[in-house]
């Protein structure tokens, strides 16, 4: 036994030593290339370098903003300061008699009068199809999917990916159209329907209004809600009473959305039984009073889960590197005018994102500012907006599978470190 150990140890040691001293990690020595070299004299070298430098000196002279860059001024009083080299003045004042100044300066003609600005120009010409339309269409698509997929899939960390967003659009239409059918089963809904489902359906029915104001103002707060979903599955497993939840059929109005979301949920949750039968039996009988407790518990759990989804995006958060790449992408386009009043303003901009990483331009808005008056804040916002739009190109480099995490972004532009002191 020990012998094997020794052998093993010896072999390992040998391998390590070989790896260290055997040039394992060193690349193969590059092939040595030879080239012919000629020897030149010092004078020739000086001549060569002089010739090569001449254009550089010319550039240096040109660099200062002084209007009349000449080669000479640099040698004069010009210090090694960032000032422009004093421009060459006429060497000696011309002795010629000063051109007779107009003895009596004529009255200075007041500047040519300019009529007050007239802003009655016709309305700006319509912008061409290229840039304007897309941004208008995009936001609506992006916003609607946002509230829908999140609430239903949230409890599980597995994020409902893009497919949900496309489904959502269709769902909206269906929901509006079928809203009437839902009313037939209203009673059952009130009695036993899980609160979560009921509220979701309502929001979908109210699409137009809800779509404009994305869910971010999550109604419930995070901590409590996130715990409940965890406990729910175990409870449900203990009580195999799926059917009591008759209310779900009542939610039928939005059939399509539910069925699809149900599909997504069933694989995740360990309690598929209770839900699948519901969908299969669209119109069960009225709920039994004895089952209310169970229904309530489930409803609470589901509601908590839904709240959690609304509160925080599902799925793994962005890594630090992903955040950094976004930050770097924007900051290289953020032009700061350090001498302006706007350089004293910190502004926060909110924006909605398309799944492709592009910004919904119409969603850009200032959600906060500090450090300046309204005009300065507006200028700072415009600068920030310009940076965001200019650098997006075909979309910011954000992971598509974490869309839920970055579908809404709040970006704070803080010029404090760049401000003049």
């Amino acid at each position, binding site marked *: 036994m020990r012998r094997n150990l020794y052998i093993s140890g010896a072999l390992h040691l040998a391998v390590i030593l070989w790896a260290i001293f055997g040039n394992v990690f060193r690349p193969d020595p590059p092939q040595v290339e030879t080239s012919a070299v000629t020897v030149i004299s010092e004078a020739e070298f000086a001549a060569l370098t002089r010739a090569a430098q001449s254009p550089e000196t010319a550039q240096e002279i040109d660099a200062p903003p002084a209007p009349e860059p000449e080669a000479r001024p640099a040698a004069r009083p010009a210090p090694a300061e960032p000032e422009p080299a004093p421009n060459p003045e006429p060497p000696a004042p011309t002795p010629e008699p000063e051109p007779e100044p107009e003895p009596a300066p004529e009255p200075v003609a007041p500047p040519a*009068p*300019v009529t007050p600005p007239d802003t009655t120009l016709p309305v700006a010409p319509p912008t061409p199809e290229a840039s304007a339309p897309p941004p208008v269409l995009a936001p609506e698509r992006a916003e609607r999917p946002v509230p829908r997929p999140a609430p239903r899939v949230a409890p599980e960390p597995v994020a409902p990916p893009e497919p949900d967003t496309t489904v959502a659009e269709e769902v909206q239409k269906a929901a509006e159209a079928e809203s009437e059918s839902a009313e037939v089963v209203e009673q059952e809904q009130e009695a036993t329907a899980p609160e979560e489902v009921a509220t979701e359906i309502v929001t979908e029915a109210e699409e137009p209004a809800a779509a404009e104001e994305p869910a971010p103002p999550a109604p419930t707060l995070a901590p409590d809600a996130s715990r409940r979903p965890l406990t729910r599955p175990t409870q449900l497993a203990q009580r195999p009473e799926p059917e009591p939840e008759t209310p779900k059929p009542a939610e039928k109005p939005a059939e399509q959305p539910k069925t699809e979301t149900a599909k997504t949920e069933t694989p995740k949750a360990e309690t598929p039984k209770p839900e699948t039968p519901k969908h299969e039996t669209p119109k069960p009988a009225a709920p039994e009073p004895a089952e209310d407790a169970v229904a309530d518990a489930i409803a609470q759990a589901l509601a908590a889960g839904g709240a959690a989804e609304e509160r925080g995006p599902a799925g793994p958060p962005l890594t630090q590197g992903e955040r950094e790449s976004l930050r770097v992408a924007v900051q290289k386009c953020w032009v700061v005018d350090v001498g302006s009043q706007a350089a004293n303003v910190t502004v926060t901009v909110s924006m909605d994102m398309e799944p492709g990483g592009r910004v919904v331009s119409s969603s850009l808005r200032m959600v906060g500012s500090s450090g300046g008056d309204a005009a300065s804040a507006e200028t700072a916002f415009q600068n920030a907006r310009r940076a965001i739009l200019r650098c997006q190109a075909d979309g910011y480099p954000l992971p598509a599978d974490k869309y839920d995490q970055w579908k809404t972004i709040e970006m704070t532009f*803080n010029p404090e470190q760049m401000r003049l002191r």
Partner: protein
Amino acid sequence: MTRLLALILAPVLTVATVTGVALPAQAQDGPLRIEITEGVVEPLPYAVPDFVAETGDAAQYAQQISRVIAEDLTGTGLFREIPRDAHISRVSNFSSPIQFSDWKAINAQALITGAVSSDGGGKLTAKFRVWDVFAGTELGQGMQFSATADGWRRLAHKVADQVYSRITGEGGYFDSRVVFVSETGPKDERAKRLAVMDYDGANVQFLTSSNSIVIAPRFSPNGSRVLYTSYETGEPRIHVLDVGSVQSRMLPTTDGVMSFAPRFSPDGSQLLYSMTRGSNTDIYAMDINSGQTRQLTTAPSIETGASFSPDGSKIVFESDRSGSQQLYVMPVGGGEPVRISFGQGRYGTPVWSPRGDLIAFTKQNAGRFHIGVMRTDGSEERLLTASFLDEGPTWAPNGRVLMFARETQGAGGASSLYSVDVSGRNLKRVRTPDGASDPSWGPLQ
């Protein structure tokens, strides 16, 4: 063999590296929040195609006006014009839709389109629009100005001021004038005349003859009058000149006493000046209409170079009461002056910024002259220039740019005007036909 081992170890090392580098993901609640603290300081690229000439005789003006607009904007150092050769789209009609994609392709962030027309009677009309290319929207509203044909440069400056204001959110300064001392002749026999010019050195017009030495002109707040000091009587005396009629008169200061360094109050009703009695120089305030004077300082030292704060409640001046020339601030109504400059060297010619947040000054230290700015309490001093002789700063109407005089060294040295952004960038010479000194920037017209 070596390569085999390397192949085996490489993935292991890679995994280890990645694992080590990957930082723990942060929990996220609500929208993704990013803070950006580093930006870039660079000119904003813009495009200004030649304005469209809507009438045949407006063609030459259309091109000239668009060029002056471009010079104005580019001259600030805050904007960079994209050469017309790089333009993809051509603007041939003021009302035609803008192809934003074409302007995005050349990275133009702002686009200025315009048209010029003439009524045939010598009246020009210039209209323009400013576009935010990447947002695909118009900045502000279309606007138009009219003027006589010989006022086409003012038209251009007006348009440039509007563009500047819409993009930066601050007032412009292009349609403004500067009064200065024009200098000709050798250094020991220099003729000095008052002259006025556009802010960019164009349209120079002389206000006085060279019969007597004149110094330190100061525009009134509305630009209609100029205060200056003349040695016409052999000693410095303050005069006020009406710019329109070029008529001047001497202010009723005490005879036989030197009075100099005048400056208007923000409302134009009073002026500050210095008067020397014996070896003592103090600051006085005079009501221009009534001629009544009031002594503001009483120290047995030299106080001069006073300048009002924009609200007219305080003055800043230079004094050597501490043994060296320093800057002090005191209320106009009287009170103890408070020293605000504490750096090495001597400070002089203070001027309060139109914004009210900074005081510009001339500083002499270690044989060099500087133009600098500091907060009104003396903090955050920054030197913007350095040379053999820089002096006499004056603020642009928007408080963003300083103009000053720079004199070169030696017997052949001459004085000329320079401007510099308050950030210390964009130092450049203002072209004048002759030597120039003592600039005073007038108001936006």
